[in-house]
C-alpha cells in the first residue's frame, strides 16, 4: 500500500456524520437536563459506600490511626475516574481536617500527586484548619504497577490505617491492596471503573461503588444542583439506550424470523 500524498481538504468526514449527530444529541441531553430546574431538585438514591465515608474517617480518628486514600495505578489525571475520586478526596480531606486525623495519599503519578496536594490543601483551608495540612503525606511512590502496590502495601502494613479508600482506576494490584487492608483490620471503601477489579473489591471490601456510583459522588456529596442534574441526565441517557437496545433486538429478531433483508440502523 502506498501512502496517499493528496491532502483531504474536506472540513467534515461524512462517514463520521452519524457519530457527530449522536454526540451532539447526547451532549444536548446532558446540557438541557443540567439546566432544567425540576431535574436539579431531584434526589439521588442512597449510596451506602458514600454514606459510610464520615463513619470511616470517624473510626480512624477514634482509633488514632490514619486514613489512607489511593487512586490506583491504572489511570492518569485526565481519566474521568480519577477526577471522580478527587471529588471524594475533597470530602475525606475535609473530614480529616475537622477531626485532626492523618490522611495518607500515595500515588503512582506525579501529576495526580500535584493535583491531590492542591485538593487536600484547599479542603483543609476551607475547613478552617490549614495548619493541619501535611504535603509530605501526599506522595508519589512509583510509576511501576507492582512497585506502587508494594509501596502502598508497605504503608498499610507499617502505618495500619483504620480506614482505606480505594477509589480510582485499579488493575491487578487491587486485590493485593484490599487483602492487605483486610489484614490490618481496616474498613475499606472501594470503587473503580474496571469490571474485573470490581469483582475483587466486592469480595474483599466493606463497601463498593459499582459502575457510575463513583461518578455520582460529586453530586451526592456536594448537593450541587447542576451536578445532581447531570447525574440524572445519565439516567435519562440510560433509558434512551435501553429503548434503542429493545427496539434493535425486536427489529433484528423479527427480520431474522421473517427472513427479510433490512437496514441495520443500530450499526454506525
Amino acid at each position, binding site marked *: 500500500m502506498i501512502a496517499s500524498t493528496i491532502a483531504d481538504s474536506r472540513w467534515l468526514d461524512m462517514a*463520521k456524520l452519524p457519530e457527530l449527530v449522536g454526540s451532539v444529541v447526547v451532549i444536548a441531553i446532558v446540557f438541557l437536563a443540567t439546566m432544567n430546574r425540576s431535574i436539579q431538585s431531584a434526589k439521588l438514591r442512597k449510596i451506602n459506600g458514600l454514606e459510610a465515608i464520615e463513619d470511616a474517617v470517624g473510626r480512624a480518628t477514634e482509633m488514632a490511626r490514619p486514613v489512607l486514600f489511593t487512586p490506583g495505578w491504572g489511570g492518569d489525571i485526565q481519566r474521568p475516574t480519577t477526577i471522580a475520586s478527587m471529588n471524594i478526596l475533597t470530602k475525606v480531606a475535609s473530614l480529616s481536617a475537622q477531626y485532626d486525623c492523618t490522611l495518607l495519599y500515595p500515588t503512582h503519578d506525579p501529576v495526580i500527586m500535584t493535583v491531590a496536594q492542591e485538593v487536600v490543601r484547599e479542603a483543609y483551608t476551607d475547613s478552617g484548619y490549614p495548619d493541619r495540612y501535611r504535603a509530605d503525606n501526599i506522595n508519589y511512590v512509583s510509576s511501576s*504497577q507492582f512497585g506502587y502496590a508494594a509501596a502502598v502495601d508497605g504503608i498499610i502494613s507499617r502505618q495500619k490505617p483504620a480506614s482505606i479508600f480505594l477509589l480510582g482506576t485499579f488493575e491487578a494490584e487491587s486485590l493485593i491492596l484490599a487483602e492487605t487492608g*483486610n489484614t490490618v483490620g481496616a474498613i475499606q471503601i472501594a470503587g473503580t471503573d474496571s469490571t474485573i477489579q470490581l469483582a475483587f473489591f466486592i*469480595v*474483599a471490601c466493606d463497601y463498593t461503588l459499582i459502575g457510575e456510583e463513583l*461518578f455520582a459522588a460529586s453530586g451526592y456529596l456536594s448537593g450541587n444542583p447542576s451536578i445532581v442534574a447531570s447525574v440524572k441526565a445519565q439516567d435519562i441517557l*440510560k433509558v434512551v439506550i435501553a429503548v434503542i437496545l429493545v427496539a434493535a433486538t425486536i427489529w433484528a429478531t423479527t427480520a431474522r424470523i421473517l427472513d427479510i433483508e433490512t437496514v441495520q440502523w443500530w450499526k454506525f
Partner: protein
Amino acid sequence: MFLQYFSPHPLARAVNRGMLDYWQILSAIALVVGVVGVARTNLMGLIAGKDRINRLTVLAGVMAMPILAWLWGTTAGSPFVWMFEYVQMPMQATVFALLAFFVASASFRGFRARNAQATVLLVSATIILMSRLSFGEGFLSQFQWIGDWMRDNPSMAARRAILIGIGLGSLTTSLRVLLGVERTWLGGSK
C-alpha cells in the same frame, strides 16, 4: 480536539498533531517531577530520622539505575540490563505472584453461602474454576462448555451493563469538567 476528530482538513490535522506533541512533552516532564518528588520526600525523611532503612533503600534504587546506565550504557550485557533482568523483574513478578495467595485467602473468606445471591456467586465461581482445569477431555470438558456459556452470556451481559454505566458516568464527568461545572480537581470546590 473533539471537533477535529470529525474533520480530515489539513488545518484540523495540524492542530491535532501539535496538541499531541505537547501532550507527549508534558508526560515526559511529569516523569522528571515524579523522580524529583520521590528523592526529595525520602531525603527529607532520612534527615528527620524516620524509617531510615526503607528510605535509604528507595534512594539507592532511584540513584543506582541512572548511574549504571550513565557509566556502562544500556546495551545487552551491561550492568543496567543485568539489574533489570535479575533484580527488578523477579521482584515485580514476585509481587504480582502474591495475587495468587491473596486470591486463595479471599476465596476462603469471601465465597460463603450467606444468602441466595452469595450462593449463586459461590456456585458460579466453582463452575468457572472447574472449567479451567486441564486434566484432559471427557467429564471435565462439560464444565468447559458451561464455563464458556457463563462467560459469553450472563457474565457478558452484566459486564456490558456496567460498561455502559461507566461510559455514561465518564461522559457526564468529562462534560462537567469541560463546562467548568466541576472544579474540585482544580483545588477549588466552590
